């Protein structure tokens, strides 16, 4: 009985693992194949053909696209965290009229589907003169990342004992010093977790990036991949697309691995009082 349960458990684990990893695995395999091979089914790599990877960078300014993505995602993370932590301090610690209403509004914003705000956002971006620029994308993406950043950080801030902050005030700290020297270090795990999520959201964001950019040089990676064209109008360049997808997935995997320990700490933070 015990053995059966064990076997069942591991089968389940294997099933879930396969289900989550297979699409990426298949993308990696496909990216090494070209021509007609692509349209036959194969589960094992036959040879290491890097031509797709070369083609990605030759046929479009893919390097620029990646750089754009990095600039946008990094700025979004930095702004989200800076705004999120200061907002969390206000929401978590300062009593003011309409505080919970404001919090609910922020939550409500995150419930609008992207498409619903698309046209309004477009007018806004054009009005600011940010159409087809990276700051325009950064601004738009903040709408996606700020609500959850503020919420998660506010919740976390509320769990920090108030006495710690009061002790700092007695020690002569200003609110800004308290945020920087006391809260920021304590909130590091939460900040890393939300920052990483914000990075992923912004890195994968497609709709805004497609709508608010015009030229190839201003695009971030997701629309660039979607708009890749083959050598003729009738060819869908699967191999190149797969190669591009693999390239842009790697930074995310690397980030997650680097911050893995911090994320785990973030998810269990608050369980133990310091």
């Amino acid at each position, binding site marked *: 009985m015990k053995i059966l349960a064990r076997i069942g458990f591991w089968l389940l684990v294997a099933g879930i693992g396969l289900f989550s990893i297979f699409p990426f695995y298949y993308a990696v395999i496909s990216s090494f194949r070209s021509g007609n091979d692509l349209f036959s089914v194969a589960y094992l790599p036959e040879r290491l053909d890097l031509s797709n990877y070369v083609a990605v960078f030759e046929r479009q300014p893919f390097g620029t696209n990646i750089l754009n993505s990095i600039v946008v995602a990094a700025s979004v993370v930095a702004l989200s965290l800076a705004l999120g932590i200061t907002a969390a301090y206000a929401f978590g610690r300062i009593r003011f009229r309409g505080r919970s209403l404001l919090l609910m509004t922020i939550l409500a914003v995150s419930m609008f589907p992207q498409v619903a705000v698309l046209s309004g956002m477009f007018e806004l971006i054009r009005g600011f003169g940010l159409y087809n620029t990276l700051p325009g994308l950064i601004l738009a993406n903040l709408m996606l990342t700020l609500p959850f950043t503020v919420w998660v950080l506010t919740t976390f801030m509320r769990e920090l004992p108030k*006495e710690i902050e009061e*002790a*700092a005030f*007695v020690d002569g700290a200003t609110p800004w010093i308290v945020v920087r020297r006391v809260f920021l270090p304590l909130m590091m795990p939460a900040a890393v977790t939300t920052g990483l999520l914000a990075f992923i959201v912004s890195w994968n964001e497609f709709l805004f990036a497609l709508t608010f950019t015009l030229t190839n040089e201003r695009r971030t990676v997701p629309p660039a991949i979607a708009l890749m064209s083959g050598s003729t109008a009738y060819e869908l360049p699967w191999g190149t697309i797969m190669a591009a997808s693999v390239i842009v997935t790697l930074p995310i995997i690397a980030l997650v691995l680097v911050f893995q320990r911090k994320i785990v700490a973030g998810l269990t933070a608050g369980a133990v009082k310091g």
Partner: protein
Amino acid sequence: MADVVLKNVRKSFGRAQVIHGVDLDIADGEFVVFVGPSGCGKSTLLRLIAGLEDVTSGDLFIGGERVNDRAPAKRGIAMVFQSYALYPHMNVYDNMAFGLELAKSSRSAIDAKVREAARMLQIESLLDRKPRELSGGQRQRVAIGRAIVRDPKVFLFDEPLSNLDAALRVQTRIEIAKLHADTRATMIYVTHDQVEAMTLADRIVVLNAGRVEQVGTPLELYHRPANLFVAGFLGSPQMNFIPCAVSRTDADGVQVQLPNGGTVTVPVSPAGVRAGETVTLGIRPDHVKVLDQGALAGRIALVEELGESHLLHVDIGRERPLTVREPGDSRHEAGQEIGLSLDGAFCHLFRESGGALPLLAPAGSPTGRPAARAINAA
């Protein structure tokens, strides 16, 4: 000079008023303890003095200066929190140095002060540890250390020992007393623990529902409680209260009739007391004597042995049994009928308003009670 003066201080949270006009005069170098039941506003009062809450109305002076609108750090105070409130991400050294660093002290001055405080509190070997690597007692020392290095004129403690075990409590209590003797700083200390209050305080402030009930030295409060609340709050086990009627008043005091017929004359000022008036007689468990025949008769409901003494809970036909404390082991058993005598010299009388009738001090004894005890013992 760092006296602390409160003038008609009030505090409301939204609609709810929790401090109702407190007047208090704490002298420089004095050790004052706030006691009172849970929720009476002890912490709030302390936090008002610290500046962590704003005074709603009234004036607060520290060292002669009005500090109502001054930031906590500018009031010359240091506070030790019940939950220690150490900075979890800093080691012990940095925890203590943080305030000095913010005050832009020089590195060498900071180092000297931190090491001096660490030596005083015997935590020199812990300076590199994080708070989570310390025991409760060690954390409390660090919290006290953090207060000491600020060289405050006024120390504020909010139940600093309540998270420690009994032995550590006694030890830390003695250390705090030593700290007071060494620094001669003004100290304000909130506690639930009567022993802490009695042993540490120069003066005790008894609070109830946001009001000051009585202020005085520990013995003053113990021997001459101003009202029923203070009498019932200080002393453990609690003072016994027996409702009775005044039968006669004269120059020796007030004679009252006990529920089952006996009378006791209590040496209190009879001014304004009428015969027939209902009063409450109060007597501490230590002062009730067990006899075969006495002013009161009752049946022992329960015997509690405490080792050095024992408690008899005596049913005297009223809903609350009378508590008697006698030294040593009990000679009695539950169910036994006994008589009790109440020595008038140790009794208190409270009028229906709750106020105590002032004691008639015997000649040559300013406080009255200790002298009365001496006479009795002789």
